[in-house]
């Protein structure tokens, strides 16, 4: 019974944290666009939070730069369990055009475990919403 309640509340209110680890800003604009009333993600209970301590889902964009590595791990560890990570855009998936540069470690999965990948350069807002909803469907 309690488990069922926890699962229900988890699915009904995934609060997200927007994390940029060195993106060119295109994916960030699309993430912000996905949060506008036009797409109305609050009907899924998705709310943007300002701190990782309140968040359930990390929506991350951009390749992992060397400088951001420790900070990403710190943010991931601050997020309470159960936590999920969505990599938005080609850079967060693999590093994309920045892959192999001297200051880039690669995609987000080189540093923290990733649950869902949303491809695109940049990913469309509908794709981002779809990614979050599909992640919720897996729970």
């Amino acid at each position, binding site marked *: 019974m309690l488990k069922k309640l926890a699962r229900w509340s988890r699915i009904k209110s995934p609060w997200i944290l927007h994390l940029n680890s060195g993106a060119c800003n295109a994916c960030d604009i699309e993430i912000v666009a996905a949060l506008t009333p036009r797409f109305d993600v609050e009907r899924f209970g998705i709310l943007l939070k300002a701190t990782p301590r309140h968040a359930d889902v990390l929506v991350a964009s951009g390749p992992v*730069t*060397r*400088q951001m590595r420790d900070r990403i791990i710190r943010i991931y560890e601050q997020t309470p369990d159960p936590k999920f990570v969505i990599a938005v855009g080609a850079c967060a998936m693999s590093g994309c055009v920045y892959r192999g540069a*001297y*200051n880039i*470690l*690669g995609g987000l999965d*080189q540093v923290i475990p990733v649950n869902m990948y949303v491809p695109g350069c940049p990913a469309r807002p509908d794709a981002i919403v779809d990614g979050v909803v599909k992640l919720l469907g897996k729970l």
Partner: protein
Amino acid sequence: MTDAEIIDRLKADLGGKIVELTHPAPRRLFLKAAPGDLLAVTGTLRDKYGVVFLSTITGVDKGETFEIIYHFSTPEQDFNLRTELPRARPHVESISSLIPGAVLYERELQDMFGIVVDHIPDARRLVLSDDWPEGQYPLRKDWKHERPVEVIPGGES
């Protein structure tokens, strides 16, 4: 002032200090000076030609030497001051005593090329990450990047 007049003035003012003076396009002037004359030439440009703004510094790795190009801009002309440093002893004098905004570009020059800027007011690292190993300069041509081994979660398919 037209370009021809400026070139004549430059030759009169800095005759001995300029090794080479080219004029490849309208309003673009390329000056070449020895590293020791850098401060004197910059000072003259600033005081007599209204050069107060440094757009950027370009570094070129030419093998035996490093070439640095200071791109100064005025509303009328671009003055590009080139100088060459030996690779074995890449030392250059800081021009931030004359143009304070140069310090950022000089810090980046130190990071990326390993050129030592003498008398720089602030020698901290600018663009490279905090855990970057000493003595690695990514924009040098002989620098090889060792990519970290990528782990594919779940293995390759």
